[in-house]
């Protein structure tokens, strides 16, 4: 396996119920569950607590463990900055005042921030479970069953396949550039910002030329094997009923949590 592939693919090869589950069940289940999680009301701590349960169960059922899942969820962290201001701009009872600048955080504001962060964390953890137990190919195959246009599915398949070929080409170019980016002590190295950006642009341009040529060769290879513009796929065995039911139960749970806490 290439180093590029090793970094790009997040699938963790293990053996578990979740790994074995059909992507055609997992993908819609995760999508709908995430949507349900997203609609948690501000300050609904009970709902949030109930929604953490599937994450914990999933972490153990996938044999990945809670730490593994936790590590994968830090990805969304930088975005926290976008919601923090809410704590200070929402009107409400002041619960703390920042020293020096004198900004005041309201209780409603803090509640809003905490809710957003919590539901985001749960959603990211659920997605992390999907991505770590399902290969990209399986996820893509699942797309076919959701009436995504063939042209789009086929394009996405090609994109996946050639990410690795062209990504490797890009890495080779970066390596060639970096190996020539020496600096002599006492001299300011690296040129102006504009110059450095332009070098990156030239690399992008040359990558485009190579990629377009490659697409022509790939097209020729497809034609040689009988392609006439209409992508065909092997159909796969129908989804086992048990898998569908399992997926529906997960979604039903998330929906029940939302409905139940609103009614209660």
């Amino acid at each position: 396996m290439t180093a590029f592939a090793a970094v790009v693919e997040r699938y963790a090869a293990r053996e578990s119920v979740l790994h074995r589950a059909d992507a055609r069940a997992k993908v819609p289940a995760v999508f709908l569950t995430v949507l349900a999680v997203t609609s948690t009301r501000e300050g609904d701590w009970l709902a949030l607590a109930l929604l953490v349960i599937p994450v914990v169960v999933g972490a153990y059922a996938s044999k990945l463990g809670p730490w593994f899942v936790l590590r994968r969820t830090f990805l969304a962290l930088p975005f926290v900055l976008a919601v923090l201001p809410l704590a200070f701009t929402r009107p409400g009872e002041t619960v703390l005042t920042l020293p020096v600048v004198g900004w005041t955080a309201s209780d409603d504001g803090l509640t809003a921030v905490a809710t957003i962060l919590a539901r985001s964390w749960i959603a990211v953890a659920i997605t992390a479970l999907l991505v770590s137990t399902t290969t990209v190919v399986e996820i893509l195959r699942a797309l076919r069953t959701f009436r995504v246009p063939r042209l789009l599915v086929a394009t996405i398949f090609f994109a996946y396949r050639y990410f690795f070929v062209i990504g490797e080409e890009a890495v080779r170019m970066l390596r060639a550039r970096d190996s020539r980016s020496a600096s002599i002590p006492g001299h300011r190295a690296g040129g102006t910002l504009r110059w450095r950006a332009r070098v990156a642009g030239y690399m992008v341009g040359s990558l485009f030329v190579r990629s377009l040529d490659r697409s022509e060769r790939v097209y020729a290879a497809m034609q040689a094997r009988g392609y006439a513009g209409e992508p065909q796929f092997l159909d796969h065995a129908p989804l086992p009923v048990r898998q569908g039911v399992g997926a529906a139960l997960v979604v039903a749970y998330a929906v029940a949590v939302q409905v139940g806490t609103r009614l209660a």
Partner: protein
Amino acid sequence: MMSITQAAIQVTSDGPGMHIPDGFVSAPVAAAGWVAMVGILAVAVRVTNRELNEKAVPLMGVMAAFIFAAQMMNFPVAGGTSGHMLGGALAAILLGPWAAMIVMTAVVGFKSVLFQDGGIAALGLNVLNMGMLTALVGYASYRTAEPLLRGNRTALLASVSVAAWISVEVAAVSTSLQLAVSGSSPLDVVLPAMVGVHALIGVGEGLITAAALGFIMTTRADLLPQRRPASSSTGRG
């Protein structure tokens, strides 16, 4: 080897702070994003199917891989940070807006699946902002300026720069609005912040996009859409 690769991935996945994760936008806003994305994609699929016909799949698939790789082409800025591009404007200028939207959808979608860079409920919005708006706005700005320049290369590349810059700014504005409408961030805070940060990021986008186009004009002008005869491209051995 590994370290460079990792650096490349790092840069790509850090992104220019526009990939909305799940939970940050409200469910109705996220759902609206999906509806809009699916609608626009349906049109894009129909148009590209007609315009590119048999070649559509290999061309757009490989081009999506290209944009993804192009996003790895970073350049050091200052203090350990680095710049790179989104590529929506470049894709639109090279492939036309509709094919570019499909290509960018594949790129943004993959990043959310491969890196969890941007959520899946929020995928519709992320595709709209970073894939469709950048392509449309970049293309429209470029096409508006182009006829006024009478083939002056320097002016053309300058206008490409500006078009790419505008495309990033519009995406930033749109992201801010979605956060504000969701009640996740006050508009008077998030808008100036996003627009400000992306004014700088957009400069990198502009410089790279123009340099890339300049490179192609110099070395392989035959590949640019305006000059590419429909038949010349059959089967390069």
